[in-house]
């Protein structure tokens, strides 16, 4: 750490740096550890108490929140009493360190562990062996789970479906969101229209799937159709269809599932686009009009480039959503009828087939697929100074 105060810029000695590192790690671990311990004691105390439930709840909130705040306050006090140099070295870690430590514990370590498991067969690494022994054991299969990920029939189908999800889901969500934002902006009923379009955002993916299950509901011909789509179709003289299970048109039956996410995400993109469009200075559009641009040209030549950042951010966010899509497929078809996606495959292999090695490999592949989109997304956020 450099101190550019005054004339001197001095590099602290190696010993000091090591000491600082130890101090930081100690802070990062000690604070959450003590916090968890105190909370655990509180939990034990409360569990055995006979007080009314409401009192226990209030005590728990005060105990939990207050205890953590007190802990931060104490550690901050200790660090502030140190020599100035040490205060500047350690203080950030009082606050950021615990978050990093917890994140590492819950996110980084499980990720590494999942990768480790993905190198073994369906039962995972056998217990009680050292690492060299594990690598030599029959359970260790190297990267062959990954080979299977890209060759197994259902997995290939899942990749294809996920690509459909990404392409159609994001494109239509963005396009509809943009169109509605532009039109609503010029409408007298802007608030009402936008509220209605935004409403589905409040529904969970599972809830939305159940709503759409009713829309797609199929009864054999002759019986009364309680599904909205079939009811309309039959009353118009058509034949009822089992939309999501319609394997004759596979893989296009996936589109019936994708529509659900479009319905949910259009509101999200509309809100962001609407805000971005309102941020375009009026004079810019007037300048375009004076320059002789048609409204069409102004939209594509001036407005769209102006909101390019938002466009990319929304697009990548929805791509990430659709890459990870699980709930909709699981509720609607459970992955049958050629609708599996990567996440449902991961779930099926891990928990239904109990093939932990294969399941872990799928999870890692999904993670690797999301990371580049995520990085691009964050880069866009940073350029818009959202961070």
């Amino acid at each position, binding site marked *: 750490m450099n101190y550019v105060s005054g004339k001197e810029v001095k590099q602290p000695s190696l010993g000091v740096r090591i000491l600082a590192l130890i101090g930081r790690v100690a802070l990062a671990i000690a604070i959450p550890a003590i916090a968890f311990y105190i909370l655990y004691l509180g939990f034990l105390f409360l569990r055995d108490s006979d007080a009314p439930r409401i009192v226990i709840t209030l005590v728990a909130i005060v105990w939990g929140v207050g205890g953590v705040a007190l802990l931060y306050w104490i550690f901050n006090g200790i660090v502030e009493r140190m020599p100035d140099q040490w205060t500047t070295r350690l203080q950030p870690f009082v606050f950021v360190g615990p978050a990093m430590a917890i994140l590492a514990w819950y996110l980084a370590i499980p990720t590494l562990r999942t990768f480790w498991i993905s190198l073994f067969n369906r039962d995972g690494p056998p217990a009680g062996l050292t690492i060299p022994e594990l690598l030599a054991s029959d359970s260790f299969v190297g990267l062959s789970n990954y080979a299977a990920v890209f060759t197994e029939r259902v997995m290939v189908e899942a990749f294809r479906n996920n690509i459909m999800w990404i392409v159609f889901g994001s494109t239509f969500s963005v396009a509809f969101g943009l169109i509605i934002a532009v039109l609503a902006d010029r409408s007298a009923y802007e608030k009402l229209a936008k509220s209605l379009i935004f409403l589905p955002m409040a529904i969970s993916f599972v809830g939305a799937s159940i709503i759409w299950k009713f829309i797609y509901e199929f009864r054999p011909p002759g019986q009364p159709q309680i599904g909205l789509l079939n009811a309309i179709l039959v009353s118009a003289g058509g034949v009822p269809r089992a939309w999501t299970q319609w394997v004759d048109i596979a893989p296009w039956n996936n589109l019936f599932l994708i529509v659900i996410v479009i319905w949910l995400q259009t509101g999200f993109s509309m809100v962001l686009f609407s805000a971005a469009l309102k941020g375009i200075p009026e*004079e810019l559009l*007037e*300048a375009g009009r*004076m320059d*002789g641009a048609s409204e069409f040209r102004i939209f594509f030549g*001036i407005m769209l*480039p*102006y909101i390019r950042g938002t466009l990319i951010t929304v697009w990548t966010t929805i791509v990430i959503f659709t890459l990870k899509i699980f709930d909709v497929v699981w509720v609607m078809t459970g992955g049958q009828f050629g609708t599996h996606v990567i996440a449902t495959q991961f779930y099926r292999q891990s928990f239904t087939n109990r093939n932990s090695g294969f399941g872990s490999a799928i999870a890692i592949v999904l993670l690797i697929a999301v990371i580049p989109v995520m990085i691009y997304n964050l880069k866009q956020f940073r350029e818009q100074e959202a961070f």
Partner: protein
Amino acid sequence: MAGVTYRHVYKRYGDVTVITDLNMEIADKEFVVFVGPSGCGKSTSLRMLAGLEEVTEGEILIGDRVVNDVPPKDRDIAMVFQSYALYPHMSVYDNMAFGLKLRKTPKSEIDRRVKEAAESLGLTHLLDRKPKALSGGQRQRVAVGRAIVREPAVFLMDEPLSNLDAKLRVSARAEISQLHRRLGTTFIYVTHDQVEAMTMGDRIAVMSDGLLQQIDSPRNLYNYPGNVFVAGFIGSPAMNFFDATLVSEEGKLFVDTGDFRVHVPEDRQQPYNNYVGKEVIFGMRPENLHAPQFAPPGIDASPIEGIVEVVELLGHELHLYVNAGKNSMVATVDTRLQVNTGNQVQLVMDMHNMHLFDKKTELAIR
């Protein structure tokens, strides 16, 4: 090349009338400045001419053509906006070329015009830059360049200098005046800054409350303001006004404010005779108040006195805020005058530069 005519133009938003019966003839190649406080309707008048606002009633002509229903792009005009409104994703070159491209101007012609305009504005080395990478002054010049390449019949400018710092504004002011001389095109320029108006305009249209108060050359506007608003708006510090009565004694006219009595020069008495015994508004510019010992020779001096309340030394001039009883006034006097707050001070008014206004109509008595 074309002149501009406003004929009984009204602009209303619902029940609110923001422009009332605007009539104006702007000659070809003239530089006219619309000036007035914010909300006076000057920008709206310009925007109606540009086609960005609809005309509620009346006609606007560019040349001999009524343009009320002509879209902005077909009006043969170009506009420089206050915010410059440069397209942020386009280079300087593309910003200037955009309008020409839309008009299907041949590529070589676009290139020639853009390069020429860039050359004249000193932008040649910036043509590849995006607006974000330019300074305020450079952006302003690009906005002007974008208007120039269109070779319009009328140039419209809506407060193009108000986003520049004070120093840059002075040089940009001179540049725009030069540009007008060089292009020989009609310029219509909106500002709230009276210095810009006085220094740049061939004629100045002073507006207030949606009404055209007076349109005249800078010199006439300053010397012969048509009403109290114009008299108070043009000039800095603003003209002093006093409620007064015109009295006649032994064939001579005097202005009596209650605090002091000053005489009316004989050659100016004639139009005032009808107002003897009536209430009037007496106007005197701060720069026409002098310390007696430093007063220029040959003025028709009339003495007054009062208490100095504030002294402001600006270096080249000295502002005194003087209380003469129930009236206060500002005097711009010679910096050699030694005076402190609280002092009794003797001043003289140069009565040749007096102004009298009707109390009711607030119009100048001529």
